[in-house]
């Protein structure tokens, strides 16, 4: 999957596209992509997937995304707010974090 395809997929899932959300959920256990796995964790509120994503993440952007997702799943909204602001300064196009910062509610 190219970077563009990945971005489009994340965008569709966040937008509530049911088919894409299902695809993301189904691939959560096998996908090597930390962003897909963490997104699945956020969509389903499952901390263990976020933890799996933590093991896959190696870039700064991905590791920060996972950390923010974990804070979100743990309900630490103050921390999510602070970390997300930091993250978005360096990675303004980070879809997942922008979504988490706004409450992480899928549109559907």
């Amino acid at each position, binding site marked *: 999957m190219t970077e563009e395809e990945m971005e489009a997929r994340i965008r569709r899932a966040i937008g509530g596209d049911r088919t894409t959300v299902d695809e993301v959920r189904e691939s959560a256990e096998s996908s090597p992509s930390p962003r897909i796995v963490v997104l699945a964790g956020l969509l389903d509120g499952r901390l263990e997937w976020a933890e799996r994503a933590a093991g896959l993440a*190696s870039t*700064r952007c991905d*590791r920060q995304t996972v*950390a923010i997702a974990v804070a979100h799943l743990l309900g630490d909204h103050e921390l999510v707010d602070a970390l997300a*602001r*930091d993250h978005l*300064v360096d990675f303004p196009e980070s879809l997942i974090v922008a979504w988490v910062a706004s409450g992480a509610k899928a549109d559907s």
Partner: protein
Amino acid sequence: MFSLLGQVDVRVGARLVRVPAGKSTELLVRLALSAGEVVRTDVLLDDLWPDDPAGTQRNTLQSKVARLRRALDDPHLIETCEGGYRLAVDPTTIDAHAVAADAVAARRFHDIGDDRQACSLSATALARFSGDVLAGVGDNAWILPHRARLDDVRLSLLETNFAARLRLGLASEIVNETPAALSRYPYHEALWALHITALYQSGRQADALAAYQRIRILLADELGLEPSPPLRKLEERILRQDPALARVASEHDAGPVVVRSTPPRSNLPALDVDLIGRQRETGEILELVKARRLVEIVGPGGVGKTTLAIAAARMLVDDRDVWLVRLESAATLEDIIDATTSALGVAGGEPALIERLRAGPAVVIFDNCEHLIDDAAAWTERLLEHAPPVRVLLTSQTALDVPGSAVFHLDPLDLEQSVELFLKRANLHREPSEDERGQETVRELCRALDGLPLAIELAAARTRTLSTSEIVRRLDDRFAVLHDPTSRKPERRRALRSTIQWSYDLLFADDQRGLCAIAVFNGGAALSAVESVAASLGVPSSTAIDVVGRLVSRSLVVVDVDSNDDHRRYRLLESIKAFAFEQGRADGIAQIAQRAHAEWYADAADASTSGVRGAGQDTHLMFARRERSNIDTALSWCRVNDPTMALRIAIGFGWAWIVLGDTRGAERIETALVSAGVLATPGQRAEALLLIGWIEASTGHLQPARSRVDEATAIARLLDDPALEAKCAYYLAYIVSHDGEFELGLELTERAAVLMDELDLPWDKAANGLFAARAATSLGDGQRATEKAEAVTAYLRVVDDPWLHVRGDAMLGELARLQRRFDDAVSHLRRTTEACRYRSYAQAEAYQTTSLGRAQCLAGDIETGVATLSRGIEKAEAIGDSRMAALARVHLGRVLRGLGRTAEARSALENAVTWQRNAGGGELALLGECLLAAMDAADGVTDGPRRVAAILGQARSRSDRPVEVFALDAAARIAASKGDADTARALLAEADDHMAHADHFISEADRVDARSARAESSKSEDT
């Protein structure tokens, strides 16, 4: 900012860019060296892939450009142009361009007589060079002309810098630096001229003339050239002592020197601290330091004591040395002494340190004394007592109460100063908001933070993403949560702790782990070390640099830059370090980090074992010196948690400690050996014993040293390990030579040679050969000395160890002396001494200085020889080597007696003999006894004749020719004084015969008793 001169380092704004290694870096440098210009694609392809057919790498080039753009995070920095690419940056932001412009400007300043500007500019530009030019780029052909051009720029800057400083009257400073420049540019006559002039202006006329001879011989031998007319003219001017040449300052120098062109003798952090609101306090501290020898800055954690001390000391560097000694990691008095010697870069222990501090005015800052008040007080008092020119400035949360000290209580910032500090730091990140400009919210925040600068810095570092109101709200919550009315901690400490906790809680998990990783280091660490420990905590190496960068930007980590070599270290302030470590312990990761820390130093120790014996020696020595407190920390942790790793570390750094003259090395190795107990393998045990033995021998403890090597030898035999047994043999040869047992030394080296014959051990063979040559030379055995020297020379062709090469040169000097080529001996030994000084081989320098003094006396320059021998004694004492000092005193006593300076001679000899008797012997012990007995006999001391006779017997039995000569001369004098002219003549004749075999060692000028006996005998004949 593009730094290309050493390893490639790129910053966009404050952000450090991680440039992909290999071709991407090479591409970036290629474009940067032509910054602002289009570099054609076909040129890039030819340059970067010279071996590939034209055009085959075009796609690769495109992908490299794309990677670079991503790394730079700005697609516009590398522009795609018609037929090529262009790096769209201002060339002045690239160090390689900037230094070239600076070189031209500095030269212009010098030409118009503005030497201060010339100094300042050239020094700043030179500081940008570190190591080999463009070292991070590989060796493709395109780079070579750039390297050559930049090397010329560096040379030009050096010339301008030295020339300007000469006119500013700083010759004595320059003579310590020119040797390094000459080793890089050995044939550059203009540099030699500056070196020679600096020596002359420092009052070292003989050294200046010797330097001229060195370049003359070098040019003749290597290039078949004569020195140029200006250099020849310079020699003439020195010979006729041209007064214009001795002038130390030019007509341009209208006032006191205010610019130090090289980093002054100081280790203050290179990065300037932007001090806010402490002008009055700085002035008061300065006045106190001028008036009192000990000033204590006392105040709570985070109040800015260190910053203030550094700011005040920075204003003193122009007229005195300033040394910052951080004590946060010290736990004992020995640690404090270690930290002090390390900060001053002194090899050896306390005596060396005191010697250095006696040399001139200096301020020593002891920072963070609160946890070892008694030890710090004791050490400070010792320093002040033994080194009168020293002043001490120390920082502590509690006063040390040393008698006579001035205590300065540092209060937090007042509200206005706090606001100023906050706004200044906050403005680093963004423009202040309207709310902040109104300042009420900021005032509220600063009040909450009690005016503690560290707390304000931590809060301000968050303004990048949080408004001041949000910070106030979040901190208020935090203070409410943490407020504990029952706490006995002062309010300020709780405010600081809460702010640190708050700052910590807002970090990403990787950053928190990174903080814990840095917290296990003592005195900070280089990035690679932090990366390694952070990796053990699950922070990928690829992200560690970002982690550190974020921690720096949040004021949690301090960057220290060594102004001498631009080395960067990342360090935590003490209060943050304590917090981070405590947090790491609570999270269960501190122990993991400590193990990773120890493993990092164990790996470095493994690399040091062979590395320190090779061409990369300087790097390994610098590492061992710079990381001393971290190595001690690792050893300390390992002793409890992993004793075998402790032994691995101690053995690995053992040779580095030997070369550095770090006498605590023996104690470290022994402690590790004891901790390891039965876990140590026999091989490790033997290695450890050998290293301990060597260090003990080098500090004059010969008997325990022999016992260690004997035990190691027994192990080697048990293991049937010829390489180890050979090593034991030549280590023992080294030790017994200190006792003057040169025949035994030769036997041992012969044995080692046989054991190693079939083995591929060139370093050991070279070292063994050196000891053999030295023993043969000391025995006066010219044939064997020559054979050994030839063998050593052959081994040294394949061994790149500078330490061995310096000793090889010394060996040639000793051989020249043995062959009565005294001028050659002086030349070799002078070069050796300078090399030792340049490389900080303290012990070898002391020894070779003594050898040089002896050779100068034999060459007829006795006054210079006496001065050099005295210097040798000072150097030996400075490193705590009393054995070597005694050896030098025997030589000095001999020569002084020859000059008729009898009282001084007696003093030197008595001092030496007393030490040798107490130590149970030593090299030249019999000679010292003989000379003293001869003097006593001449003075009519009753047992003088008996002692002379006994010593003559011993000398004969050992075939010790020099002692035989002196004893026979003394006996002849005794006989002559009794009117027995025949016996006197017979004894003198025998002495003269022996003199033919000893005149490489002593000269006719030394034979005071022979002259007296002859005169007395003549008188008898006349009557």
